């Protein structure tokens, strides 16, 4: 999912495991996943399944997944995907975080982690946190630079180089150094700031908001069209919010939930609080608009989608709702977004003062 592989592989390789990173999801991944997946399960399931298949072809022997018994289908991914893959003939070990106790996960790395298991875990978690934070900061910086770049694509290239350096860092010191280098690469990108960019918030189901292969690199596309993008979700938030170690994230989540309560009274298991809370936040910050992305049949997002028009009216903020599945095409997607940007630009021009 996006650049989550950088901190996650750092965690696992610090524990001595050989990490296999499947290639970025492509049409082929989606096709493979759709072949084996149930017909109308959500898109993240299909892509995830496709990723797992590719990882297995590349030699992985263990597949890890978070799982749980929640309202959203996500908790069932691990159990069902592993079942589907075994029925299809693949052999591997399952590491289901949630179903398997923490002790199982902890002990899984006993052979590979070296003599002192607790120390290895402590080191691994430290570098995990550091890399996750670094990824978040670099992505955030790139989003602030991209609308102003002179050469189209220079920011994305600098970001990709930076991520590569970060991924290669093996310990705390190297990570610190890598972050510094990556940041400098981004700051070196040539910019001109002779215009006032549009501000657009990106909300919706977490996988399609974060994974560029699913949202057709919407963050880059918007940036290259001179838009400052503000995603309501990020990998860092997703990885660390349940641990509650960052008070800013906890406060942000609480605020989003409080703002959503008048609209959705109970937690329904998805990111609906960030969708509705994010829309309200965008309105309060006087952004120009919101783009809402969600996979076909996503339950929490369907509910949010039904309620968003009421939020739009009350807070006076335009929202573009886009539904994605394996048949979506980049051309259709970008056409709708470009039309939306045109409308927002005209709205701005008409504003007095």
């Amino acid at each position, binding site marked *: 999912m996006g650049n989550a592989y950088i901190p996650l592989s750092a965690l696992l390789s610090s524990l001595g495991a050989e990490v296999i990173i499947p290639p970025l999801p492509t049409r082929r991944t989606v096709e493979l996943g759709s072949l084996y997946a*149930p*017909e*109308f*399960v*959500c898109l993240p399931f299909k892509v995830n399944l496709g990723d797992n298949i590719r990882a297995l072809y590349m030699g992985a022997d263990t597949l890890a997944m978070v799982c749980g*018994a*929640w*309202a*959203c*289908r996500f*908790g*069932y991914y691990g*159990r*069902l995907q592993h*079942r*589907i893959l075994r*029925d299809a003939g693949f052999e591997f070990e399952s590491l289901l975080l949630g*179903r398997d106790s923490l002790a199982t996960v902890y002990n899984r790395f006993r052979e590979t982690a070296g003599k002192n298991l607790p120390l290895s875990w402590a080191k691994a978690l430290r570098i995990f946190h550091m890399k996750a934070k670094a990824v978040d900061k670099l992505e955030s910086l790139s989003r602030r630079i991209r609308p102003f770049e002179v050469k189209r694509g220079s920011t994305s290239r600098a970001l990709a180089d930076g991520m590569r350096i970060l991924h290669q860092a093996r310990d705390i010191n190297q990570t610190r150094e890598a972050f510094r280098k990556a940041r400098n690469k981004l700051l070196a990108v040539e910019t001109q700031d002779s215009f006032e960019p549009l501000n657009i918030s990106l909300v919706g189901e977490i996988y399609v908001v974060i994974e560029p292969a699913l949202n057709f690199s919407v963050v880059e596309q918007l940036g290259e069209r001179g838009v400052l993008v503000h995603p309501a979700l990020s990998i860092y938030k997703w990885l660390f919010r349940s641990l509650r170690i960052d008070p800013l994230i906890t406060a942000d989540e609480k605020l989003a939930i409080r703002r959503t309560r008048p*609209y*959705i*009274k*109970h937690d*329904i*298991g*998805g990111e609906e609080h960030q969708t509705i809370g994010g829309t309200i936040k965008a309105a309060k910050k006087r952004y120009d608009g919101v783009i809402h992305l969600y996979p*076909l*049949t*996503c*339950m*929490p997002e*369907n*509910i949010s*989608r*039904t*309620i968003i*028009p*009421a939020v739009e009216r009350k807070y006076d903020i335009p929202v573009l709702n886009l*539904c994605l599945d394996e048949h979506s095409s980049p051309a259709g997607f970008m056409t709708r977004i470009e039309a939306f940007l045109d409308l927002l630009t005209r709205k701005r021009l008409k504003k007095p003062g």
Partner: protein
Amino acid sequence: MTRVGIPRALSYYRYFPLWESFLEECGIDVVCSNPTNPNILDMGISQSVDDICLPVKCYFGHLLDLNDKVDFILVERILTPEGNLDTGFTCPKLMALLDMVKHSLDVKPRILEFCLDSKKHSLAKALGKIAKSLGISKRRALQAMRVAVERQKTYRLELRQTNWNLAAGCPSREYDQKPLTQKTPVASQKNNPPGIKGEHPVKFPARRNPEQKKDLDIAVVGHEYLLFDKFLNHDICGKLERLGARVQTSAALPEEIIEREIQQYKDISWVYERDLIGAASYFLSSGTVDGVIFLICFACGPDSITMEIINREINPKKRPPVMTLVIDEHTGDAGILTRLEAFIDMARRG
């Protein structure tokens, strides 16, 4: 007199006897929306998100059907239904149904909220809130609650004992004035449950030989709001009966059987899906039926996962033929009939 409207969709098929008894005991007029018809479905579809499931679209249509006819509309929010396993929750769409209705539909009557969270309170307490909103005196409300809970219990028991013949239609008193146990049409059943005699009240057009012997037992597994709504499911049970099958449904299985079966399948958070998995497990492994049909809706979130769990994790030694019927608003009657005919032929051959 105050009129309360109840949309004939979703939890209507589960809780209507409870609601109707309670409100009538409190002296309130109960009005149901019309049975599902193309108009209602179209209204619902036009007011909802494209990819939400069909039963919710149908619900919106029924709700709008009541818009000008009543003073209050009863809308449910079912978080955890009552039962022995008071854990888990229902589908997110049922949990947030009230929110969707409040914020996206132009509802003219006042909304009465029936919020059922069995983790926190009982069925009777859920009714208490409604009584308060309607200004019913506490004494009258308590008496009404007692009657209503009893009626609900009776309904669930009768559902199992009579193996509800779905050709009769919806499970409400207002469908016709006879009490529940006498409503089951019996001419089509070979072995009538004790105490029931009579002729089929509705004449169905004969497709095949009207004297066709009933020589097959087919189980239909699905949510109650799909099983009982003849328009939504294209009268699948009626069609099966005319093709010579005795129909059993997952809605009519005793809770003890379902609980026994569900022990083998852990960690299912959705309560209604547990019922489906338990029923499927029973029908597939008990050897009492000649075929099993799963009736699901396209875009049903939990069902997409449950179907896979049923198909992959339930592995009895001898499985009867199984068919999955996925329906949505574009499904055609002819298509359903073709599939059913093919399935019955296959089941006949054993």
